[in-house]
């Protein structure tokens, strides 16, 4: 087990930058499993055991010649634990989007207003605006599309007076569909921004 202190020492300067949120790691325990031993693959000359016309061979030739261990086993597993924060139960926290759209539909104005009020009342609360897409298309491109939705909600919240320091727009792309299935009903439920308190 690595303690939090050990984790901190592993991390580069980025950890100390103002952008880094230590909170994110607090809930995560990082378990380093015992490293598998690397077994180098050696190559040696074949002895002419049968006395036939077989040639004697030199090690380290065109067969790859590697004696470095990296090719063998050499994978140490790491396990990450989850962390979930309690959410205010009374608030509706999901905004749905039309296909290929980043516009907030009028019916969701009240959702944003209620959450903006909640944040104004408690300056210590932090809100993540988590953008999601449906499952069609590439993962990275969908991550960028989800970011665009999250950003649209962030701008709307900003207009409602929420301070930038209290919210962060992030994206899960297509990775966390709220509904399985590969039809328009599922797709429509998955094109969304979730407002999650941290």
């Amino acid at each position, binding site marked *: 087990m690595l303690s939090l202190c050990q984790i901190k020492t592993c991390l580069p300067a980025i950890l100390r930058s103002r952008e880094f949120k230590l909170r994110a790691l607090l809930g995560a325990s990082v378990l380093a499993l015992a490293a598998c031993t690397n077994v180098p693959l050696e190559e040696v000359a074949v002895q002419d055991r049968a006395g036939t016309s077989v040639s004697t061979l030199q090690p380290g030739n065109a067969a790859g010649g590697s004696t470095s261990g990296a090719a063998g086993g050499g994978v140490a597993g790491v396990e990450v634990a989850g962390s979930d924060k309690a959410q205010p139960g009374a608030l509706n926290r999901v905004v749905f989007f039309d296909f290929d759209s980043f516009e907030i539909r009028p019916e969701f104005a009240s959702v944003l207003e209620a959450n903006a009020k909640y944040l104004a009342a408690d300056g210590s609360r932090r809100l993540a605006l988590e953008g999601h897409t449906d499952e069609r298309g590439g993962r990275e491109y969908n991550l*960028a599309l989800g970011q665009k939705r999250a950003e649209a909600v962030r701008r709307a919240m900003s207009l409602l007076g929420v301070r930038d320091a209290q919210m962060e727009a992030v994206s899960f792309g297509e990775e966390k569909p709220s509904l399985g299935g590969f039809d328009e009903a599922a797709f429509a439920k998955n094109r969304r921004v979730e407002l999650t308190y941290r």
Partner: protein
Amino acid sequence: MTRFDPKAQTRRRQLLGAAVASIPLMVWPARDALAQFRVEVSGVGLTQFPFSVVGFRGNDAASEDIAAIVRADLERSGQFRFVPAATGGLDETSRPDLAPWRDKGADSLVTGSVTRLADGRFDVRFRLWDVVRGQDLGGLSYPVTQQTLRLAAHRIADYAYEKLTGEKGVFSTRIAYVTKAGTRYTLWVADADGEGARSALSSPEPIISPNWAPGGAQLAYVSFEARKPVIYAHDVASGKRRLLANFRGSNSAPAWSPDGRQLVATLSLSGNAQIYLVGADGAEPKRLTQTSSIDTEPVFSPDGKSIYFVSDRGGSPQIYRMDAGGGNVKRLTFNGNYNISPAPSPDGRWLAFISRVNGAFRLHLLELSTGTVSAISETSADERPSFAPNSRMIIYATRDKGQDALMTTSLDGRIKSRLAGAQGDIREPAWGPFQR
């Protein structure tokens, strides 16, 4: 050591190519020896070396069938066609009578043995024969543990591949991929045939976009374990991880520079997805694109001088190229309105990418010098191509017979193999570099 004349091999390959070119594309039925390794090869290549491998003498004592692994490796490359054994009872010390092999049409033959050593290891030996010229093309001995028997077999396949094609084999390289089982996401490192997978990272939150550092010791990837996309670098042998990018918003799509000193990545510091240069040492990121559009999936060209990326600045996602320092942007794809996931070949000749055609996401190949584009799959949910380090094969994710799968394909799309691996959702393949 016997001399080898590559010209003779090339000539023979050309002759052979002419001979089999008329065989139509067909599906090869799964055969027992292959089924054991769950490698399904379909299609027939234009130019294939007929070869044979006889069962290694003494192999019964070991847990892996060396000859079957060598055969599956060579077949999967698309450049070899297996010819069933003419005679048995051979090993690396025998000088076989090559006439029956010649009659069967095998141009080359691998023989060998597996011997249990006193310390519990196995001595795996082989010899490669040029059947046509009656020449010994050399052989080697690999004293290995039970755990590295497969690697010895892959090394033998690499040896044969290099002797017979003149190019380096990739069978002893590694791949990374991600599986999702229930709510558990696991990043795996496996042999290039998908076997021998070992878990590098296991998490309750998604893991995407693994990318091998030059040299193959580290992976960069995006993990959502902090409830947002954050880029890590991960030393595979030790499991030691460090943050590469954890900035406000999303951090994704990492790709190493050829010298391993920096990465390109997508950050949303400006609100939208933009491309940045990030130091491998955690230096302050430098913004490379300045648009209000989506710019993502950056990847260096093999010479490090330019960056391929995806942008919707023209109204739909298309692939572009810019200078490594940003600027001098040139659009590369023009067919269709959805072209993503550029993957340049290590030799700089090709760019693999995914294009949406009539609603189907298909693997395509762009020849950079001519601009010629060809579709090399007939599936509809292809994702994330990645080139083998010798530029002769591509690995990609797809759906095959209703299941998520990893496939390898030859560049002409004629030989495809479905790779083994863990059950369930399997995705995000990344082919590692040659091992030093």
